[in-house]
């Protein structure tokens, strides 16, 4: 069975500072990894995804994430945050083994609070 752990429930940061949101996963098979963002009162939007290839993945709004297989991590980073980045961020994993159903397992979410 797969699981996802987001190590921080809340991350407060000042505007224009860098930020890292941490995500670890466990799986007995190879996985695809995703980061989604949820703005207040909205559905989730895909920020970026890792399927294969380069371990550094660039997404929308200046975010990037690095897949580290040995540490089973997929941390999300942004070098300089804006007030508008304040939102809930979800890490998710999906297997692509046999019987692949496209089911996403989500982490508990991390609230990014950007302060002026």
């Amino acid at each position, binding site marked *: 069975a797969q699981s996802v752990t987001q190590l921080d429930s809340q991350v407060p940061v000042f505007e224009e500072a860098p930020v890292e949101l941490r995500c670890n996963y466990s799986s007995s098979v190879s996985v*695809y990894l995703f980061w*989604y963002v*949820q703005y207040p*009162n*909205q*559905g*989730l*939007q*895909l920020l970026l*995804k890792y*399927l294969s290839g380069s371990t550094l993945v660039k997404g929308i709004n200046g975010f990037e994430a690095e897949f580290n297989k040995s540490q089973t991590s997929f941390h999300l980073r942004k070098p300089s945050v804006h007030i508008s980045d304040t939102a*809930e961020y*979800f890490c998710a994993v*999906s297997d*692509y083994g046999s019987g*692949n*159903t*496209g*089911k*996403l397992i*989500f982490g*508990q*979410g991390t609230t990014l609070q950007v302060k002026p």
Partner: protein
Amino acid sequence: DTAVSQTPKYLVTQMGNDKSIKCEQNLGHDTMYWYKQDSKKFLKIMFSYNNKELIINETVPNRFSPKSPDKAHLNLHINSLELGDSAVYFCASSQRTGNEKLFFGSGTQLSVL
């Protein structure tokens, strides 16, 4: 045009009632999903349909019944509502079953009193 639209946005009802949430996607996607987000923002899949065929049915009480009249619609009917059903329900779609990008609706906040 909204890609994935669900109605109603808010639903307040009494315990024991039956209610439905509708979802439509205009993206031409083959696969649709229902997710439940609890008060702690934990998001969990409930169902998925691919071309009107049930693909995923997680451990969900049989009071919850999804219905897909065509691949652009996936409705969620809930019988005998309970207090614990209070949550935000999200509909989503993807181009096909697999590991494609999911497009989410804006959610239905269900409050059972």
